[in-house]
């Protein structure tokens, strides 16, 4: 208590620790709120169920539809969970403390998005085989589906986080996020479904996965910048 | 001149509906884009003037 003020500064120490701490904290927070954890998954399953009911339960037809349906449902499920990424932190003042930290903001942002992805995108990827059975997707397509989701959903989380950061100061940001973010999701959707279709027809997957990987790399480099700037702007207003 | 008569010009070789519809839309979009800021301007000036008068009355 009686130490000299500002005496023992250890800058640059604890960046990795901060990343790990934020990741752990966000995972812990989600795991303690179980309902929110499973909501995107339930939503995902429900949207999938709507298609056979709304279009046709005929296996051949569903098999043809499956890559697109699964990808669109994954996209919507990610989007649905996006609004809460910064919302609770904004409401209880944690976000202010985060922005006032001398540590690099991008690090914390990436950790938060990673935590979010692990509980939505990764979870969706893991239940995808089950869904593909329900939609009669040929077994050859399943690895392509899982790989494309694995590479594509992090990009969805990163881009979605930009929308979440831009709308966090607004009372009703939910619908607005979709409007802002959905157009930006289109390339991921195109390459993702392309990968699955290629896998089904036995064409090589590499090109699609490389494109999805390139999008992800670009997202990891640029999205945290935009998210950080957007958070500072939203809190400032 | 690519047309021999006025009726030929109107019919546009059977595509008259499409061509004239396009040009009508084009013109209306252009005019709308000019009318909107002009109307906004007169509305804004009236509003700002009212505001100025209100402020002058109750300093």
């Amino acid at each position, binding site marked *: *208590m*009686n*130490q*000299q*003020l*500002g*005496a*023992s*500064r*250890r*800058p*640059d*120490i*604890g*960046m990795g*620790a*901060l990343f790990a*701490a*934020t990741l752990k*904290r966000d995972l*812990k*927070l989600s795991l*303690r*709120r179980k309902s929110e954890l499973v909501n995107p998954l339930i939503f995902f399953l429900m949207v999938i169920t709507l298609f056979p009911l709304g279009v046709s339960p005929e296996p051949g037809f569903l098999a043809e539809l499956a890559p697109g349906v699964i990808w669109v449902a994954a996209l919507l499920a990610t989007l649905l969970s996006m609004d809460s990424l910064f919302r*609770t932190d904004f*409401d*209880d*003042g*944690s976000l*202010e*403390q*985060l*922005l*006032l*930290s*001398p*540590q690099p903001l991008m690090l*914390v942002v990436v950790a938060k998005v990673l935590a979010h992805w692990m509980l939505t995108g990764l979870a969706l990827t893991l239940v995808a085989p089950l869904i593909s059975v329900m939609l009669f997707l040929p077994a050859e397509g399943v690895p392509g589906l899982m790989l494309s989701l694995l590479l594509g959903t992090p990009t969805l989380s990163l881009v979605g986080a930009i929308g979440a950061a831009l709308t966090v100061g607004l009372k009703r940001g939910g619908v607005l996020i979709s409007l802002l973010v959905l157009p930006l999701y289109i390339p991921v959707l195109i390459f993702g479904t392309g990968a699955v279709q290629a896998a089904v027809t036995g064409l090589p997957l590499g090109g699609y996965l490389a494109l999805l990987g390139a999008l992800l790399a670009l997202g990891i480099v640029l999205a945290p910048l935009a998210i950080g700037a957007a958070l*500072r702007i939203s*809190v*400032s*207003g | 001149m690519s047309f021999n008569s006025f009726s030929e010009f109107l019919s546009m070789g059977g595509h008259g509906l499409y061509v004239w519809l396009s040009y009508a839309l084009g013109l209306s979009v252009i005019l709308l884009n000019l009318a909107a800021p002009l109307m906004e301007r007169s509305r804004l000036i009236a509003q700002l003037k009212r505001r100025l008068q209100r402020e002058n009355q109750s300093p």
Partner: protein
Amino acid sequence: MSQAMLKVENLFCERDDRVLFDQLSFDVDSGEIVQIEGANGSGKTTLLRILSGLSRNYEGDIYWQGEPVDRVRDEFRSELLYFGHQPGVKALLTPEENLHWYCALHASLDPARVQEALEQVGLRGFEDVPCHTLSAGQHRRVSLARLYLSDARLWILDEPFTAIDKRGVAAKEALIGRHVARGGSVILTTHQDLQGSGAVRSINLDRQGERG
């Protein structure tokens, strides 16, 4: 060192078509307590948010130790403790987890002292219950424990004494006094009169608003 710790020059800010303050200038030296006064809606919270760097909707200059604050943002942040309207406490986490994360955000803080800080604010025995089971006052004290942990030189406190009982207030005032005695500075807003914290300078925003 003759330089003021925090120097504010010609600050101008408007909100919702209303000028909150115009040409507001003041210095905060080390060892000083500055109380921001003003009626509700006079812009006290806005001013504190601007000073802390959260809000950037202002015109004018702010200097931290003689340098424009935008240029020394990181140094400034590591010397700042901001206590806002929302306490920044996660209801689903325990007090201990909350403070550990705060320590991760400020690398210079020692997580080993979290226990001690919680004891100081009277939360011994509540370290590992989720914060949402705590009372409003206890909730706020979790956040106040940051004051005991902090080694920041500038404290910006927005209504730090709400939902705190009398004895708690006295303890916090003593803490502020100690901080100032160590060469720190405090900028705060409060509805209560400060006693026993040494000299308090006050800045009134109401007169500012009239001028603007």
